[in-house]
């Protein structure tokens, strides 16, 4: 790079270097630009929809009277179901794989590969699973909020498991050895030493999983989320959610509904950004260096 002796070739090489570097930077900048345009476009389209009534009114066939009350409540309920499902199941699975599983056993390896694969199954397939097993078939709940929440929970479970495993693995073995040497059993060691140390990492994983679940639309459509809900949802009622409401409004030909969709997108994006901010805060504040 600093070969002065090469002389004439030097300037051409340097030009090529700079051109290449500029091209690479342009690749990154284009993504940033696209994201920027998207955010600005949504903000411009949707800001006129945001008002207090937007949050307190149910959906309506008249754009002027429509709000996101049922959708927002539905989303909050769904996230509640998802949290209650993924935290115990995800953490338990992560603990089993990291602390108990003997990797030389084929079934433990099978569980690992299986989770890796589940993480990449298209979200709509989880909708089909929910349709066949939760909504109809064996459990036969009907197209209720609980079924939607469980389908979303299954969808994002691998995220929690993978993040949880990393957090647990980051706790150094010396902590476990010290605890065991003092006479604690394996579970006492895990419950009192390993888990508390891994909580920030696990919490970050849970928030990431929630931020994935909150925007998922396709599985909820298949599970039978309703497009028009004019009551406050509960676990065993029909339901809608923010992304479903957005989809319904986007599908209407009138521009007024598009503005409503953009308004609901703003609410969804604010929720998402808030969750990510919490995750970043947790990561920076509680990250332990051993």
């Amino acid at each position: 790079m600093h070969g002065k002796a090469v002389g004439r070739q030097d300037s051409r090489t340097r030009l090529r270097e700079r051109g290449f570097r500029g091209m690479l930077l342009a690749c990154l900048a284009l993504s940033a630009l696209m994201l920027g345009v998207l955010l600005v476009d949504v903000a411009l389209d949707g800001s006129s929809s945001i008002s207090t009534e937007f949050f307190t009114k149910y959906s309506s066939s008249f754009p002027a009277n429509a709000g996101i009350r049922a959708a927002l409540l539905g989303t909050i309920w769904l996230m509640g179901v998802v949290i209650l499902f993924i935290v115990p199941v995800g953490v338990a699975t992560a603990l089993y794989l990291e602390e108990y599983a003997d990797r030389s056993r084929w079934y433990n390896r099978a569980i690992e590969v299986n989770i890796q694969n589940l993480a990449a199954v298209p979200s709509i397939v989880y909708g089909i699973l929910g349709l066949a097993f939760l909504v109809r078939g064996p459990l036969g709940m009907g197209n209720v909020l609980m079924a939607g929440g469980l389908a979303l929970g299954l969808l994002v479970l691998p995220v929690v498991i993978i993040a949880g495993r990393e957090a647990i693995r980051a706790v150094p073995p010396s902590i476990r050895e010290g605890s065991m040497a003092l006479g604690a059993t394996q579970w006492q060691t895990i419950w009192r030493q390993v888990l508390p140390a891994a909580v920030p990492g696990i919490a970050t994983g849970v928030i990431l999983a929630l931020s994935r679940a909150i925007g998922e639309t396709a599985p909820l459509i298949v599970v039978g989320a309703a497009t028009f809900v004019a009551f406050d949802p509960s676990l065993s009622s029909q339901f809608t959610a923010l992304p479903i409401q957005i989809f319904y409004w986007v599908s209407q030909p009138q521009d007024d509904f598009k503005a409503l969709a953009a308004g609901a997108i703003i609410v969804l994006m604010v929720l998402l950004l808030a969750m990510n901010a919490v995750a970043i805060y947790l990561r920076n504040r509680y990250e332990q260096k051993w």
Partner: protein
Amino acid sequence: MEAATTTTRATPKLGVARRRVGEDVIKGLLLLAALLSVLTTTGIVLSLVRETIVFFGDVGVGEFLGGTDWSPVIKPQSFGVLPLVWGTVFVTAIALVVAVPLGLGSAIYLSEYASPRVRRTFKPVLELLAGVPTIVFGYFALTFFTPNLLNDIGKLDVSVFNVLSASIVMGFMVIPTIASVSEDAMTAVPSSLREGSFGLGATRLQTSLRVVFPAALSGIVAAVVLGASRAVGETMIVLVAAGQVAQITADSREPAFTMTSYIASVAKGDLATGSVQYKTVFAVGMLLFLITLVLNAFSIRFVRKYRQVYE
């Protein structure tokens, strides 16, 4: 504390600890949780296979996989899945044309060129882009990309619902996946290789393209395959912006139906269990699941390869 297994002898000796039932129960519960993920896979496969078999009782396998006409609702009914497969392939191909160069370019820059400060600025941008819900991308494709960029600025005369807009926007959705996986692969290339290359007088460009890139190739292939798998499985962007016309056309200004958008458009709350449309959801879902399964298996295998070499 732990009492050693006592025998009649007076001297206590260390032996096998008393079996603790509670510990075993806990281990069993944790294993049960881990098995739930296996049960999920089993459930997916079971639900898809069962209804698919029923479907093939009504419609021949040859008609389904070889037919070029998809009209499951309007009579005369026809169940040739190829238009849906074509829609998926077409959308995925254009999305990759956008995402592969941009994603790899971003990855090379982040791994080989960027200062820590630049990384701190751009990594969150990619993370944020990855976090945008796909319904939002769908809204953007339909209400901004198609009318403002393709029609007004590009003068492409596309229809309201079209492949081009949906797949370009989907390309941007896929960029973070390709960028982050291939950046991991490039960062895993040992710096001794770079130093050797610089030592021989190579420039940074030559080092990036002829040393790091080939050394990370298996990881880069994995990234692209994973990106393809995400594009194949993506539903909302195509459902909102690409229309619902099952046709085999090479004109990207036309609408198209993909496997995912078909499923989402027909599987709604009022779909009657046991109807032909109900069964098509599972048959098309099965095909989708198999395609993504093969892609993911490839990707996992390639990732494992580069990990073995350098870690």
